[in-house]
Structure formats: C-alpha cells, structure tokens
C-alpha cells in the first residue's frame, strides 16, 4: 500500500515531520479552541486577547443548548435525512457511473456533459423552482422534501464513473457469458469491486449533506423538521446572540461528532477508493 521513492537522510525526514507538526497544529488549533470554548462562559469567549482555557469548565452551554432548541429531534432528523440521502446518492451515482463507464449508447457523451454541467449552477439559483415543485408534491416540511431533491449529484456520478472505467471488462464479459443479467453483474460484481469508491463517496456525501443548510432552511417550516445546521442557526434569533456564543460553540462541537465518527470509520476505504478513480497510468 505504501509506495515511497527515495529514502532521504535523517535531515529531510525531520524536516518532513516538522512540516507535518506545524501543519497539523495549524489545522487543529482552531478546532481545539472550538471544543474548549464550548465549555467556557460567553464572556470568556468574547474576551480579548484570546482565552485559552476556561476558568471553570462546565457543560452549561450544552445544557442551555438542549433547553433552547429541540436538540434530540434535530439530531434524529439530521441522522435520518443524511443517512438516507447518502444511501440514495450512493445508489444513483453507482448505477449511473456504471452506465456511463461501461456501456455505449447514442448520446452518452452529451448526457455526461449535461451531468457535469449541473455542477456549475449555484444552488440557490434553482432554489425557487425546486421549492415550488416540492411544495406541489406536498413535501414541504417533511422528510421526502428534505431527501429526494438531493439524492442525485453530478459529483458522485463523476467520481463513480472515473473509478468504474478501470474495472476489468473481462470479468464483466465472463459473467455475461455465464448468463448473468446486467443488474446481477452490477450488484454482485461491480459493487463489491467498488467498495473503496463507495466508502469515499459515502463520507464526502455524508459530510456535505450533514452540513447542508440552505435547502433544509427553506423546506423545514416548523422546528420539528429542523436539521442540526438549521437549528443551530436559529440561535441567531436571540437578541442577545453574542451572549449565547458558547451555546453556538457547543452546538458546533456536537455537530461534528457524527462526521468524525464516519470519517474515522471509512477513511481506510476512502484513501483506497480515490486511488482507483481513473488515475491509473
């Protein structure tokens, strides 16, 4: 799994570690401060210069958060919506990616370009027509409304296609000769061979959908349908919003926990996955 070129003398190695340490420090310091600040009082957060450690670390911010917004419900919604959307994305992307990668049909290239083109439009531009459709379907303030518009994504199709193009045709042809249906080939051969890219897309889609803000804001009309980002955003309605800043930090900390878990669980696949997305020489 590891390919490394020239093993350099110890000087370069320590230089590399230095770079990594400095880099990781820059990456993680703001992060660490976010978590620490969730245990501070708001005045400590607002104090300048920066307060590093809370004088009296407490979970008051978390308690206040739980009382201010329906935290449990928000989490439930986010978990359900994000997981469903991610599964949907994985399904539609793998199906379409496979179709574009391993089949020839008239208009395939044009269709693929159209798929790519859909990545070039900022979402809120199409927000209104999508919302209009969703409300006509009767999906406002409901789970289908939150999930369905998001389960097809050009990025996912692009990624899957890159990967699947390099799957060996011989294996697929052999299965056809054996009489397997196209769907069986997809399900029994292509998918298992694609676990790495599924892991990769899975985590990318999960992170993106979890933090998705604008669409749930518009579709969820009552707070029983709030997802985590929307609920956290509602803290801004407080007239004394600066005073609840520690609650916002607590909310942000809670918000990343599922993402960290998903990342840690899938990262092995993730790295392996992207490795095979059409970058073979």
């Amino acid at each position: 799994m590891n390919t490394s070129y020239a093993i350099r003398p110890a000087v370069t190695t320590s230089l590399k570690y230095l770079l990594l340490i400095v880099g990781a420090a820059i990456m993680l310091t703001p992060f660490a401060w976010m978590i620490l600040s969730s245990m501070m009082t708001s005045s400590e957060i607002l104090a300048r210069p920066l307060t590093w450690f809370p004088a009296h670390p407490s979970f008051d911010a978390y308690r206040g958060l739980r009382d201010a917004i329906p935290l449990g419900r928000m989490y439930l919604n986010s978990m359900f919506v994000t997981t469903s959307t991610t599964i949907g994305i994985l399904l539609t992307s793998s199906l379409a990616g496979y179709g574009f990668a391993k089949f020839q049909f008239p208009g395939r290239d044009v269709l693929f370009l159209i798929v790519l083109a859909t990545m070039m439009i900022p979402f809120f531009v199409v927000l209104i027509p999508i919302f209009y459709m969703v409300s006509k379907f009767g999906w406002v303030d409901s789970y289908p409304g939150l999930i369905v518009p998001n389960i097809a994504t050009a990025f996912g199709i692009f990624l899957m296609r890159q990967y699947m193009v390099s799957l060996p045709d011989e294996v697929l042809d052999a299965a056809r000769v054996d009489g397997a249906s196209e769907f069986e080939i997809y399900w029994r051969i292509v998918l298992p061979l694609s676990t790495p890219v599924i892991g990769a897309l899975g985590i990318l889609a999960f992170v993106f959908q979890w933090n998705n803000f604008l669409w749930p804001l518009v579709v969820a009309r009552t707070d029983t349908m709030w997802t985590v980002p929307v609920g956290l955003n509602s803290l801004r309605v407080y007239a004394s919003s600066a005073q609840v800043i520690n609650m916002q930090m607590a909310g942000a900390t809670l918000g990343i926990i599922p993402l960290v878990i998903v990342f840690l669980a899938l990262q092995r696949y993730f790295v392996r996955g992207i490795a095979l997305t059409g970058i073979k020489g």
Partner: protein
Amino acid sequence: MTTAEQVLVRPGRARAKRRVNRRSLAGYAFVAPALILLVVFALGPFLFTIWVSLHSWNMLTPLTTMPFEGAGNYSYLLNDDALFRETFGNTVYFAVGNVVVSVVLALSIALVLNGPIRLRAFWRAAFFMPYVTAPVAIAIVWRNILDSNWGMLNGLLARVGLPEQPFLDSLNQAMPSLIGVSVWHEVGYYMIIFLAGLQAIPYDLYEAAKLDGASTWRLFWTITLPLLRPTMLFVVVVITLSSLQVFDLPFILTQGGPVNSTNTLVMYMYETAFKFLRMGRATAMAVMLFGVIFTMTMIQLRLLRERE
C-alpha cells in the same frame, strides 16, 4: 491516453458506438434513475432559470405577470453594473489564489505523507478535520483569530516582534485572509485525493529510475508529476468549479467587506435575488457565471490533454 483522460477530456468520443442494442438499452437503464432526478431537480430548474433571466421578477408576483426584458438584464450587468465587474474580479482573484495555494499545499503534504511517515492515519485525520467543521463555527473561530485589534494571530506576531496586521479590516488583506481560511478548510480534502493518486503509482517505476541514478527531484518531474496529471486535472477542475461559486465563507466571515473587497459573484447574486428581489437580474448573473465555468472547465480539459 489514460482511460481517465479519455473519459474526462473527450468523453468516450474514441469509443462511442451508435448502435442501439440490448446492451445499450441496459446502459440507458443504469443512467436513468440519476438522470431523471437530475433533469427534474437540476436541469429543469436551470432551464427555468434561463427563462427567468429574460424577465424581471421579484418573486412575490405570479410568474405569468413578469415583464419581458429580453437581453436587458444581461446588457445592464455587462455595461452599467460596476459592482458586477468588481465582484467578478474578486471571484477570479479568489479562485486563482485558492487553486494555486490549495493545490501546491495539498500536493506537498501528500508527497510527505506518501513517504515513510509514522502515524499516517493521525496526520490524515488532522488535516481533514477542518473540512467537517460547520461554517458558523469557522466564522466565530477565525474572526477571533484574525481580529485586527485583539486577535490571536496578531498576538502571536507581536510576541515574535513582527508588526500586527489588520487582516479582515484591510481592503488589501481581506481577500488573502479569506483565501487563507479557505485553504485551511479544504486542503485536507484535496490532500487525500492526491495521496490516493500517489499511492496508485507503481513503486517499481521509482526503483528502476533510482537504480539509474535519478535524483529525487528528477523522479518527481519525470515520474510522479506526469502520472499524477489525471488526479491533478480532477482536483483543479473541482477546485475551480467550487471557487468560482464561493459564497459561504465570505458571507459569514466578512459579509463581503471591507466595502466590496471580498464581495464575490455568488454573494452579489444572492443579495440581488433575496435582498433586492431582482430575480431576473440574479438569474442572468447565474447564466453568465455558468458560461464562464463551463468554458474554464473545457479549457482545463483540453490543456491537460494536449500535453500527452
């Protein structure tokens, strides 16, 4: 040409057959679910958007009463709207800065992590963590760090004897600061993509070259970089795409300020649509942005193909 390049650059042009047979029907069937969803939820709405861009619409009146403007919105934006030009310039500035810095840093870190480094999983996780953080937390944290009067970064600079900087309060430094935060946020994501790309390069190629006495630098130039080009293309296309549409970060960090120095095209679009209630004009901006992105992407695909 690698399969990737075939795919990315001239999608299947070399191999497309025009026959409709059982296999190609299966092909249609596989792409159908995603395509239908995209048509309904992306393409259709975009066509609607193009149609709206030919009208004036404040979103409060029914569509049937929209006055027709023809190319009016477009000509206004191109000829009379100084802010459109300014935000367009800002957006390009941001995109170039973000792409160059992110790619260089992501690649460098990936190169380092590709070598014999301990605790690789830890470093990977460390660099990826900023990406999972929600924008609202990023805003609070970074405003705190970059505060021109009392921020942590200035505190650090003062401690080592360097002059303090206005960062987000300065017309000149705001955009570079924004690029800095954006790089912080995304470099881990692109690093992982590069990492995977590097890991796919067969070790024996390096072995052979080293036996011939090639230096590390030469190895990089003649083996790594060429074989990494498809990954590079993927990353550059994706970063450019998202950088040209940047919205969240400047929206929460600087609100486009000071004055308009970090006002981006999509921010101006959003303001035009939802604050000024000028949906016709906003959609015209979106269509023009789409044109630019599409052209850029095509150029990138072509450029990176020709060299092979």
